[in-house]
């Protein structure tokens, strides 16, 4: 790569040609305040004007996030002209911003407030008209509040890059511009899959999850038997909310905190992940033997299920009929568990802690219920759990570790843990499918071919003479490639794992925000590495378990003996399986 000589603040540096001033400055140890620039320009590029600097050879001030360095360029960040310009840019953004920061859920993680602080912006510098605003709270998952939107375009880019969807776009022009789904519709009336990736990149409170903390409070107050379950990915990220390094595994502290919060029982969704594997592996082998619809596709990710219902109605028979793990757990808790413990299922209130915003909508699906009772009553994101913990005066970092409840349900194997990352469901399913087909355990539990973050991963396993071909995709852009092949009749796979969010649940839309500006101790490339760090935490827990295949889980074996009879039995179908419906995109 060619190099160029530049000066920043009068100090000479040699940097790569073609870099933006912002990146060049960063590599030389300078931090220019910036807002719309995110993850290698995943934004509308130069729209916010917060990163203005002086550069020789340029007319006026330049937006450093888009302006490339050139030989001999002298860059000034700290001149009165540049600092005043950056401050004005932020003040102009603030002038058209709903500044009820106190009650904003992004408070503490708001990048607009961050740059306001750095630039010394005054919040009432410019006063005047405000752009007419829209508040969309129609879905159970995501709130869109345009009064907080700064039109940076990060969400627009993320939806397009991750999923090829582009649900959000810029609408109208000039002062009336807003970011919205077509026709400024609600997410509820557009083919949004509610994955929350837009929420995870939004620098302000314009896109947020719908909070259900109040619902949980009310259930507690009403004296319900409130139990909680936590998805695998939560333990790999919750620590970040308490300033622990990315990739910290906090299973024990999380359980301890939940117990202090007053939940009657604290269960691990991994138990149900093991149950899912029993059902799903059996379903797969059944389809292979009886000539059923192949490839079979996993159905744990509600974002992916939404995508399938909107875009591939013709392929729905390929989806496994298994409910997602936390729904299965809810159904088992309100049937088997209540029966065994003499609890009236009507008194039970099941809370799921999930890394996901789509799970909030999933739990509201009427088909995910048994005897008129929803399997799950409330879904909190990892971020909401952190809020609950902070509110309750718990010092999370200093908590002693505690163990999950596992009286008759709750035990889990390593297979359940890795559900939280792309490839994990596949690996877990193959561990059990291999045993069912061959009667032997795999020589090595780790199936590395399906690990990692390639968009599409493929592998073939020879199991007792049957070659099982599998593929794994995450993010709908990647999934689409596999789905188009199925549609064209060209797919040779038996089993496909699809997760909605790129990276899987560890990088789900409900996980702690990864914002370099708030993470001074993480490496500069943290946006590229955080998924692998969180995934490593899950693989670490998997490796630490004595039992690593779902069919070895003693409580699962007992559950089938005592209650469900066998995988895919009539009873199992009643409680643990569901169906899907093709949906109109713009209804």
């Amino acid at each position, binding site marked *: 790569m060619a190099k160029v000589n530049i000066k920043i603040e009068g100090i000479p540096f040699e940097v790569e040609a073609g870099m933006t001033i912002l990146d060049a400055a960063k590599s030389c140890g300078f931090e220019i305040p910036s807002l719309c620039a995110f993850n290698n320009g995943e934004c509308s590029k130069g729209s916010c004007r917060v990163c203005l600097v002086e550069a020789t050879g340029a007319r006026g001030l330049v937006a450093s996030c888009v302006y490339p360095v050139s030989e001999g360029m002298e860059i000034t960040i700290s001149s009165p002209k540049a600092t005043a310009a950056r401050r004005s840019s932020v003040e102009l953004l603030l002038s058209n911003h709903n500044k009820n920061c106190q009650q904003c859920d992004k408070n503490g993680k708001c990048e607009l407030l961050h740059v306001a602080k750095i630039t010394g912006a005054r919040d009432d510098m410019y006063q005047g008209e405000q752009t007419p605003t829209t508040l969309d709270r129609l879905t159970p998952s995501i709130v869109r509040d345009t009064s907080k939107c700064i039109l940076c375009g990060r969400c627009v880019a993320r939806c397009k890059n991750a999923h090829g969807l*582009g*649900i959000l776009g*810029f609408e109208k022009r000039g002062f009336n511009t807003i970011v919205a789904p*077509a026709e400024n519709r609600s997410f509820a009336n*557009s083919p949004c899959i509610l994955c929350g990736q837009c929420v995870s990149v939004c620098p302000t409170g314009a896109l947020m999850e719908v909070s259900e903390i109040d619902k949980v409070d009310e259930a507690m107050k009403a004296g319900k038997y409130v139990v909680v379950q936590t998805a695998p990915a939560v333990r790999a990220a919750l620590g970040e909310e308490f300033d622990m390094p990315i990739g910290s595994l906090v299973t024990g502290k999380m359980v301890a905190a939940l117990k202090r919060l007053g939940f009657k029982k604290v269960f691990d969704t991994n138990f149900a992940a093991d149950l899912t594997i029993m059902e799903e592996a059996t379903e797969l082998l059944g389809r292979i033997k009886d000539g059923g619809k192949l490839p079979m596709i996993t159905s744990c990710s509600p974002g992916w299920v939404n995508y399938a219902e909107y875009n591939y109605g013709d392929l729905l028979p390929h989806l496994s009929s298994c409910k997602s793990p936390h729904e299965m757990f809810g159904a088992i808790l309100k049937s088997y568990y209540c029966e065994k413990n003499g609890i009236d299922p009507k008194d039970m209130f099941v809370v799921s802690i999930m890394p996901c915003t789509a799970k909030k909508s999933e739990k509201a699906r009427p088909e995910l219920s048994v005897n008129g009772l929803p399997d799950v009553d409330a879904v909190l994101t990892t971020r909401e759990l952190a809020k609950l913990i902070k509110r309750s005066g718990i010092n999370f970092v200093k908590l002693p570790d505690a163990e999950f409840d596992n009286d008759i349900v709750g035990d889990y194997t390593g297979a359940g843990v890795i559900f939280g990352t792309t490839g994990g469901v596949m690996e877990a399913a193959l561990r059990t499918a291999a045993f069912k087909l061959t009667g032997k355990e795999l020589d090595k539990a780790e199936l590395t071919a399906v690990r990692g973050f390639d968009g599409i991963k493929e592998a073939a396993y020879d199991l007792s003479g049957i070659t099982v071909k599998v593929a794994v995709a995450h993010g709908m852009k990647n999934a689409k490639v596999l789905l188009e092949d199925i549609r064209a009749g060209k797919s040779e796979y038996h089993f496909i794992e699809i997760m909605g969010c790129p990276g899987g649940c560890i990088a789900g839309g409900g996980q702690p925000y990864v914002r370099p500006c708030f993470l001074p101790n993480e490496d500069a490339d943290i946006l590229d590495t955080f998924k692998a760090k969180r995934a490593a935490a899950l693989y670490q827990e998997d490796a630490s378990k004595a039992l690593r295949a779902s069919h070895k889980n003693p409580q699962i074996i007992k559950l089938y003996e005592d209650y469900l009879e066998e995988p895919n039995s009539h009873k199992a179908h009643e409680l643990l399986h569901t169906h899907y419906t093709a949906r*109109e995109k713009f209804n």
Partner: protein
Amino acid sequence: MAHLQEAAVKKITEICDRYANDKTPLMMILSDIQKEYGYIPLEVQELVSVKTGISVAEIYGVVTFYSFFSLTPKGKYVIGVCLGTACYVKGAQQIVDKFSEIIGIKAGETSADGLFTLDALRCIGACGIAPAVTINGKVYPKLTVDAVPKIVEEYKAMEAQQ
């Protein structure tokens, strides 16, 4: 999308195919559709999205950015009043107001009988004949407020004869 008539689907597909090899075909496609039908409703945008792979939100963004594109059907006679600087200082605002008063619609709207659409335009480059008005392409130079009622009457009479 399900509500589109077969003939429309065919026509729009043909328009999209015209620019299949273009790197950035959207503006050309939308422009042709606007000319063909006079408006570009969401159903049509959905079809264009399927044909081009460009998201509906992005297409909607383009349609709402350029005033040349319309989301609703335009009237039989589209009255365009230039509000560019030269026309404005020559009293174009009063001309818009007069059309608005007589027809009973605001700028940007279409009359209930579908006869007239009133558009306030940015500079159309005819400053020498300010204030300028166009009706379906016919130019009315140096128009005065007093002349407005007669013009509207003429079109109404023309319509009555047909």
